[in-house]
């Protein structure tokens, strides 16, 4: 991601939540919504503003699964692997996506920072299993083929954008 770090923007986010230790998670969430990951610069700044050690902020960021210290792709594709989706075969979908995009368990984001593929333990849309989401839009009753088609569509949209 070429977007540079804007400490004023982060300051505004901190002010919006109030610079209190209790707001750390909410602040990190909003920073991540903006940058799609947590840039390293955020830790000293947040630590200074909120008055907790940098290590504490970092410990929060690494504890919760939603926080990422690596830049994520523009399209974050999540494959639900909750029980219901798992029972209705969600893993072949994950495998197809990874092979289509040249990704693996270790490498979850494409080099052009366009796609990130990850699993999520349950989206609570079990009636529609197996489910895939792209940036929080839910796609129900997926199959590997439908997922490939969705991927082509996203790529096409991107090329035309």
């Amino acid at each position, binding site marked *: 991601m070429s977007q540079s770090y804007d400490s004023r923007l982060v300051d505004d986010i901190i002010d919006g939540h109030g610079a*209190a230790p209790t707001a750390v998670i909410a602040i990190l969430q909003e920073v991540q919504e903006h940058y799609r990951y947590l840039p390293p610069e955020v830790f000293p700044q947040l630590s200074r503003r909120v008055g907790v050690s940098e290590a504490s902020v970092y410990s929060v960021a690494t504890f919760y699964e*939603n926080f990422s210290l690596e830049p994520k792709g523009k399209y974050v594709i999540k494959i639900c692997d909750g*029980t*219901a989706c798992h029972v209705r075969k969600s893993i072949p979908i994950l495998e197809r996506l990874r092979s289509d995009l040249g990704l693996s368990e270790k490498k979850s984001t494409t080099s052009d920072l366009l796609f990130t593929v990850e699993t999520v333990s349950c989206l*609570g849309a*079990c009636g529609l299993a197996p489910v895939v989401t792209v940036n929080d839009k839910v796609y129900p009753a997926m199959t590997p083929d439908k997922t490939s088609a969705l991927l082509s569509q996203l790529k096409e949209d991107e090329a035309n954008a």
Partner: protein
Amino acid sequence: MLKTRDDLIQLRSACMEAAAAETQKILICAGTGCIAGGSLELYARLQELMAERGIACSVKLDNTPHQHVGLKKSGCHGFCEMGVLVRIEPQGWLYTKVKLEDCEEIIDKTILKGEHIPRLAYTKDDIIFQKQDEIPFYNRQTRLVLDHCGHIDATSIREYLAVGGYTALEKALFEMDGEEVVREISDSNLRGRGGGGFPAGRKWGQVRRQAETTRYVVCNGDEGDPGAFMDRSIMEGDPHRMLEGMMIAAYACDAQEGYIYVRAEYPMAVERLRMAIAQAEELGLLGENILGSGFSFKLHINRGAGAFVCGEGSALTASIEGKRGMPRVKPPRTVEQGLFGKPTILNNVETFANVPLIVNKGADWFKSIGPDNSPGTKAFALTGNIENTGLIEVPMGTTLREIIFGVGGGMRGGTNFKAVQIGGPSGGCLTAEHLDLPLDFDSLKKAGAMIGSGGLVVMDDSTCMVEVARFFMNFTQNESCGKCVPCREGTRRMLEILERIVSGEGQEGDIDLLLELADTISNTALCGLGKTAAFPVVSTSKSVRDEYEAHIRDKRCPAGSCQKLKRYVIEAPLCKGCSKCARSCPVGAITGKIKEPFVISDACIKCGACVETCPFGAIKEA
């Protein structure tokens, strides 16, 4: 802004009048499931069509009643399998699997002429069900907590008022004192719906008795169990009911502030709750001196950040405090030192949603539903290999058979029922012998399972139970916060053993080793996540021990589902064509010409005899 009780009563009757004046209503399901099916596009299309045809349509209840067709986005109806769902009132018809191209017909036939469209109705065994209440999926349920879900606009406080919303809060504030509210809830024997089944009234009473006067009410909306979405549907479909429950709890215990902790994976629940809180604040139902009663209450929303362990009380409060969500040693318990070290009522969404009903109708009414020791109803999320997936609500004590074969419509595709996983990763597997077990807290505990939050994943005989146990162990292992050794290390070792069993490398004694580890972890782990982590393994190793043994001894998956145990192939470059394997094969599945590579056909029964006889190690599991 409502200043007195009378203001609220007046506004409520105005809302009721406005709702009654709507000649017809179209309720489009705007639960997550139906939205994914395109219900919002449908909503826009219907609105557009009505404008084109000059039909007076209102999307909001306002103060002056007019004769309009009401078009509303409702909460989840629960019948997610049949989405997009559209309900037509006053007839009470339910249209299923509605598509964008059906909109015109709905307007022209149903709205303009009042005609039913049979092809959109739910059909089963050639019977067309016009009315929603006649569909077996619904008429076998007892929908109390979910009563409004699908029947009112989930985004409008006026709609909630129009169906008698906030009458319980009103009654509590003006006709009862805190002690009486606690007594009513205690008498009702409402037990926590989040899994543990701890009596809510007792919890409230304990908070009330604390010397510390700063107190909190916290709602656990961190519904992390895979396969469960009851709380999500309540938060999305009837958010005000839950808020009302929280307000009553706060009043009962003199709490001043409340927090709702919602998982990050439920963005729409967060949005609807935010909206609901803003509406309640605007009307003065939240804030200072509510309706002039002297009671003040503020509500906040915290979004989770993806940690299952935060469903545990002390981890959840740590997370609200902005820390790592790690459980701590208890006591002190949450009722004594919870959020910010203050006495805290912590209940889950469904528990709070029951409160207004109990305050309104009384403890005796509540106790008349379900068994004495666990009264009331329970919402279950029915998923897996079942005909009617979706959200249901039945009285506590209903049997599994009734839920699966009655409400659930039986197995999908008529396959054989094998087991049902109840209570998510901390629950257990119940098999055919348990079908007549009444589902309530105590009976399930005896059977070695737990109600958990209410996820029911139904599995047929193509599902391998060992793999299911591995799946849950993998989940718990991933979500272990790492604070205590038994859970952090123990679940990892158990997962390793399960992984080797499903990949056909299980060893004699593995089951005993698993059970020994399970016993240690359950007895020594710090929190509920660890204590229950081994339940799926323990319960499956009891109910389907033979499946474990087949994996370990015969390297065979009886369900034919474990990939690694599935197929044997002869690697051509290694095969010398000696034909030893073909001769050892009991079913003649191996053929070939001498001195050329042999092949295994589909007739293979995966007995593994060939692997043992091959002198060149050319036969491998694929």
